[in-house]
């Protein structure tokens, strides 16, 4: 049972509320730069919006979902009350204060730097301080997850750590370490300039430090979705998890390989040598392995459900799946989007092919499809599954839930496929408007309209989602059966030490970060010539 319902609900509701606001900004951005709207007279409004949309969707929303889900997993899988509940509320408060501190100057136009910061452009210090507070607030969660797991292990010596908690703590440690890159950039490079202690900055070094965070943060966003794949969906559709060991191996590999690969975001940059670019490209190839293993294990688990329900034949079992079950539907949509997005990712990570698409709308399409599509649809699924246990009330709107999931899936495809297409044609990202009368651009207006329509579907879907959750709070009370996670065909009775804790994998993660980032960072720190004057935006202070 969850004894910390209020804590979990507070995290989820704040996450989904800011998500609801940020998605409106996203759709507005699509609309005003489409041929449906004239040129924006003040382009800065667009960049304020992009900054807010990215900051909320990239930092605040997924972090809160991971934290809320993590606190729930902690109690549900370990079957012990959360240790450090007061600290958890402190972390939550820091995220609220940080978000407000960050978003207010952005709205005032003092910090149109996008969520990727882009020094030597420097905005108002409050934005950066706010982001730091959000990150530090989430680190409280990281520590609490570790503390709770260790307490459980002391109380249950030698017993296998429940898979959901194993994965949850892997996600926490991954986030704890990957956030260090951006934290170093903010604390040692950007804030000293924003606060007036210094006026030069090494932009190349900033980009390398940010790339330390920028890729693994995506895997941190993804972890709750993968935890749901392994530990919620098989149970919800009446199946069994095909392999507990493979699940643990996948999470361990994510921890190790999602970190030392961020320089694949910098293939087109002049400040990193080709050797390190190549190494990061190869390691990026390796990080596909845990995803490919996951696809197999989950498909096999789903097949078990189908055969238990009487499914027959090589493909005939697909018909026997419970397609009216929201978890089944969400999983199927998620996998389709993961398939397309993953294929696009393989193109991005390929050393050479990347130059065709770098910084074009293709990239916008790629990460919206993977994160907004494959991952966020599983956030919905997690909320639908947990909500009755958090409110003690039955989830009654099953057909509305299915409509919501369908809308999200169709909306995401309609939004992102045109982006991929025009990206190949060379349409750049982050533009407040396009000159559709220019030769070479005139044919591309229609694709922006298509994305705008897709975005409208996403807005409707998001509103439906919020409505469904809200209505549940006043639904009839129901005696919910105790929450359970998926059971594996072969539940582990004892595990090798390496798969029953994260020490080895955290060690490897740190070691690989040092080998893959140590030299480029040290080299750039030594390049004093590359210290360039800061360019203040939003008015000089």
């Amino acid at each position: 049972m969850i004894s910390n319902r209020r804590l979990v609900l507070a995290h989820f509701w704040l996450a989904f509320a800011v998500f609801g606001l940020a998605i409106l900004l996203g759709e507005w951005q699509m609309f005003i730069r489409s041929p449906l709207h004239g040129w924006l007279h003040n382009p800065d409004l667009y960049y304020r919006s992009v900054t807010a949309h990215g900051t909320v969707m990239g930092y605040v929303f997924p972090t809160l979902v991971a934290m809320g889900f993590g606190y729930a997993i902690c109690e549900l899988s370990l079957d012990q009350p959360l240790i450090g509940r007061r600290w958890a509320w402190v972390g939550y408060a820091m995220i609220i204060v940080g978000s407000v501190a960050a978003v207010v100057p952005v709205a005032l136009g003092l910090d149109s730097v996008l969520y990727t910061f882009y020094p030597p452009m420097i905005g108002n210090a409050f934005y950066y301080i706010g982001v730091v507070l959000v990150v530090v607030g989430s680190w409280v969660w990281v520590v609490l997850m570790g503390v709770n797991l260790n307490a459980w292990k002391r109380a249950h010596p030698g017993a296998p750590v429940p898979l959901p908690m194993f994965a949850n703590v892997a996600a926490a440690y991954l986030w704890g370490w990957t956030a260090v890159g951006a934290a170093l950039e903010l604390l040692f490079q950007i804030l000293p300039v924003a606060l007036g202690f210094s006026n030069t900055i090494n932009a190349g070094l900033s980009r390398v430090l940010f790339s330390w965070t920028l890729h693994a943060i995506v895997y941190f966003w993804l972890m709750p979705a993968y935890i749901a794949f392994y530990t919620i969906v098989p149970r919800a559709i009446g199946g069994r998890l095909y392999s507990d060991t493979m699940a643990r191996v996948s999470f361990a590999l994510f921890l190790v390989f999602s970190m030392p690969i961020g320089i694949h975001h910098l293939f087109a940059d002049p400040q990193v040598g080709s050797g390190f670019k190549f190494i990061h490209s190869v390691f990026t190839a390796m990080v596909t392995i845990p995803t490919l293993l996951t696809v197999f294990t989950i498909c096999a688990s789903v097949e078990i459900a189908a055969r238990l329900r009487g499914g027959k034949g090589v493909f005939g079992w697909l018909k026997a799946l419970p397609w009216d079950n929201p978890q089944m539907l969400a999983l199927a949509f998620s996998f389709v989007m993961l398939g397309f997005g993953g294929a696009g990712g393989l193109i991005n990570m390929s050393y050479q092919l990347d130059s065709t698409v770098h910084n074009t709308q293709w990239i916008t399409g790629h990460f919206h499809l993977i994160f907004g599509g494959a991952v966020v649809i599983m956030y919905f699924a997690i909320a639908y599954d947990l909500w009755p246990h958090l409110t003690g009330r039955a989830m009654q709107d099953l057909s509305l839930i299915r409509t919501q999931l369908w809308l999200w899936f169709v909306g995401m495809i309609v939004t992102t496929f045109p982006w991929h297409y025009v990206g190949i044609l060379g349409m750049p990202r982050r533009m407040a408007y396009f000159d559709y009368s220019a030769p070479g651009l005139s044919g591309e207006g229609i694709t922006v309209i298509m994305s705008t329509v897709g975005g409208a579907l996403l807005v409707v879907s998001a509103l439906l989602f919020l409505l469904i959750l809200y209505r549940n709070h006043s639904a009839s009370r129901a005696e919910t059966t105790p929450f359970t996670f998926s059971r594996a065909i072969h539940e582990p009775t004892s595990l090798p030490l390496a798969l029953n804790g994260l020490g080895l994998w955290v060690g490897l993660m740190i070691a690989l970060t040092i080998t893959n980032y140590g030299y480029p960072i040290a080299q750039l720190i030594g390049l004093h010539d590359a210290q360039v004057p800061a360019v203040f935006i939003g008015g000089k202070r």
Partner: protein
Amino acid sequence: MAQSFSANSHDTAALTARIEKRWAFLMVSIIALLVAIMIFTGLHWAMMPPSRVETIDPSTLHVSGEFVESNLGSAVEPNGSVTVRIVGQQYSFTPQCIVVPSKTPITFRVTSADVIHGMLITGTNINSMVEPGYISTFKTEFERAGDHLMPCHEYCGVGHEAMWANVKVVDKDVFSKMAANTRRLTCDL
């Protein structure tokens, strides 16, 4: 396999592990093949991202050195290749119109005078970040004559969306006639 849950659990465990291993082997092989293709293209066609960590002081670009305004544009080298020097700044490229010959080895050298910019040339694989403090160098060759757009693709401030340049690829002999009269070539829109 569902029916065999209650059967000999050792057998099913061995079976599931065997199938898993087969899948893992297949996936690792596919990824290894992709990496092999990357290595082959990298070495065989010397196709690699631009990568030489070369620094330059952006605050003196306009005063002296390679990127003074009179040295920007396309220059014919003694060996017949062409070097194009470009500076990006908020919110334009200099020169705004770049002219290059077709079927000729071309080296781009690009840097920024202020913040981070980027450039790509539509319809080609040319794509680079442009960063203050660093010089981006990359080589290419245009197959045929034609006009391309060259947008800045990295957010560089409120005027970012208006930062577009043009690239004119002209026939090799047309270009050499143009080059006979001037030291550095640019074009008009």
